[in-house]
């Protein structure tokens, strides 16, 4: 299952604004600003990961300072876009719940689910941690801060819907 991705991954992308993003061994990112300043180990994140998942993306240095801002990934050309997307995919690890097997009546409630990443078990502290979006998506945050997505409530099977309803 393990595969060495470094050969298949893009390693260097330049933005029209003049800055460069480089991928080093084992996924580390280096940002080279237009003036040549290097920032090691930078982070790529979405500014609105929930409400506008395809919206703006920020590149942030290890100290938390903003280095670059991209209004929409769609406007970025490969290979930079590939690097950004790969990085975001890892950062925004968001298992999609396909089926809820059980929600134990404990405190906090323990959920047993099937996800697109395999079966999993986690704990949810409060009903507020299950958030329904207007478009029918449901976001669940566990006690460790991990998030899970149900893309469409209506698409779940009846038993999963019943279980999900019971916690809200």
């Amino acid at each position: 299952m393990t595969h060495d991705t470094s050969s298949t991954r893009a390693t260097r992308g330049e933005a029209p604004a003049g800055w460069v993003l480089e991928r080093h061994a084992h996924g580390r990112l280096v940002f080279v600003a237009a003036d040549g300043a290097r920032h090691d180990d930078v982070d790529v994140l979405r500014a609105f990961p929930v409400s506008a998942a395809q919206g703006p993306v920020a590149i942030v240095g290890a100290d938390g300072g903003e280095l670059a801002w991209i209004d929409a990934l769609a406007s970025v050309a490969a290979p930079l876009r590939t690097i950004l997307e790969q990085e975001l995919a890892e950062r925004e690890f968001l298992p999609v719940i396909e089926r809820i097997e059980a929600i134990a009546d404990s405190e906090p409630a323990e959920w047993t689910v099937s996800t697109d990443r395999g079966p999993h078990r986690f704990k949810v502290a409060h009903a507020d941690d299950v958030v329904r979006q207007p478009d029918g998506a449901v976001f669940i945050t566990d006690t460790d801060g991990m998030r899970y997505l149900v893309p469409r409530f209506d698409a779940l099977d009846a038993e999963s819907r019943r279980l999900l309803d019971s916690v809200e």
Partner: protein
Amino acid sequence: MTGTPSARSAAPLNALPWNSGISLAAGETVLASCRFDLDGKLRFTDGWIVLTDRRLIADEPASADGIGATGPRSWPLDADAHIDVRLRAAVGRIELSRQGRVVARWLFTPARAKGVHALEDAFDARSALLRDRETAGRPARGGRKPEPAPTAEESQPAASGRGDDDFPPPAAGAASWRALMRVISFARPHAGMAILGGVLSLASTTAALVPPYLTMPLVDQVLIPKQNGVAVPFSQVWWYLGGLTFAAVAAWLLSWAQTWTLAWVSERIAAGLRTRTYAHMQSLSLDFFQSKRTGDLMSRVGSDTDKINIFLSVNLIEFASNVMLLVLTAAVLVWLNPTLALLTLVPFPFVVWLVYAVRERLRRGFSRASVAWGDMTSVLADTIPGIRVVKAFAQESREIDRFVAANDRVLDANDRVNVIWSFCGPLFALFSEVGLLVVWAAGAWLVFGGAVTVGGLTAFLAYIARFYGRVESMIRMVPATQRAAASAQRIFEILDCRPTVAEAARPVRPERIAGRIEVMNVHFRYGAREVLHGVNLTIEPGEMIGLVGTSGSGKSTLANLICRFYDPSSGSIRVDGVDLRDMAIADYRRNLGCVLQEPFLFFGTIAENIAYGRPDAPRERIVEAARAAGAHDFILSQPLAYDTRVGERGGSLSGGERQRLSIARALLVDPRILVLDEATSAVDVETEAIIQAAIDRLVVGRTTIAIAHRLSTLRRANRLVVLDAGRIVEIGTHDELLSADGAYARLYRAQLKATEEAAAASA
């Protein structure tokens, strides 16, 4: 989550925690182990990483040098080996590097973070030991990044107004019925369903009266003739049984439909009451909230409307069907036999008298119980937001006592009403027993005289049992009615409050104002105390005014008047030449921005909080406002950036961060008039500098009224206005006022001295 063995140097393990196919060398000890749960494709997996005194043994990493081999592997460790652990958002990485090169990487979710950090600690301890032993004097390597410490949580006690409950006094007597009739008026939008419910009540009541009527001919024309030897075909019995069954089923179906219909209507009446009460509360002026306790208002909107709902859906249905049954039964009784019917009604006057006697007492009792309940909720609404103070001063037991005392008052109030109505029920049972006795006696006498048949008497007694049953349940209604009446009164007390800051009859609707403010001979009173004695001030558009003065000098009052949270007692405030009282309140406030000492964040995302004044603002504007307020970087560091939830529960932001969010909120509405009320006084000097820079960007081109205790924060003000005891004593620039050597100069020197003394003390 799982029992992850952590580093235990005291009792080293000498076996691996899982069957890896790798065996330990003689004398090799396990120092620590942890589990990881993601593979290279970010699928859930379960794998082990074990640290021994000489190597690292682990299941398949997400990526590694010299790939090709699958299954568990091991990496020899020397003093040059290094482990780096990072957790960003949902995925953590463990990187093993040797000679400065990363050689393997594992991924894990936050659930495994604790075990991973324990392994990392054990690794670092081992490295340190190794370095000491080698005495090679290698410099310590980069080391691990400290885990991001949660920022200080600045909890915000929600403003809970304290003071006298000055609702209009409840009117006594018939008021309870008037209050209930007003509740019924909320049914108007659902009149159709309400009428349907009434018709169904009538129908189901009538259906319930049929069975006793059928028993009369069953006894007189079938059973008694049969007993006396007359040949009666059994099919006649079937006839009557069929009729009885049909009546029972019809009564059941009708009462089902009736219960559901009326419950539907009452649920909507209660919801309408709640919305009306809450919406009305939002329209009330600030002084209303300052004089009320939060918990009391919450219990009025929540629990009192619920009591009314229960009354309408359960008790009122019962009452309506009881009244109808009583009237119909009485009619049937009179029709069957007027003499017996008259005798039946003998105990009735006593019942009426009883109801009358206890009614008012019960209403007062229930009203007391509701007040006690509101007090108890107030204790909760007080202490839960202030829990940090409670814990800091170790006053938990005192707060428990306070709650127990409030709870005891609820208990006491409930006990008192229970005494009254528990006395009434059995008393009435006695009345009905006496009534039945009278009817049996008179009935037997009439049967002997031949005036009444046995079947007639049977039916009569069946009706009487029903009659008294209804009267009894009507008695039980009395407390329920009074409870609902008391609740309805508490709701209408809110609905009857008029906002003191009222909308003009024909308001001027400003679009975008210029921001010229004229304060003309303004007086203001809080109750009997006058806090502003004739203030005159003109502020030009775009000018920044600093309000200076000791506490109690009237600075905040003046700012509140300019926000139109209150109206002046006399005099007037004009904006762009229009009296504020003639301006549409909402339109005026759209031109107004406020940054207060205690920034309040609502439960919601950061983006929603910034866009509070402009819910439809595009994301670019939100980000722009956050950047200008110096909040952008720390927002990006939150787990979900702009979509991170903050507020009551998730409030992990520091005071300075909250303040910057509230500045971004004010920036986003792009106000023409800006009020800064001690915006920087709650934060440290360093944060103040950041906030001050954000404020400097905020004030440009806007009419600004800034109140600050620290005079240094008013350096950009065009003019300083010095207030003392409700009067303006000086106006001028900083330099002018210093050279005038008046009140401002005294304040300034006192502050300067305090700052110098503090500096000297710390040096």
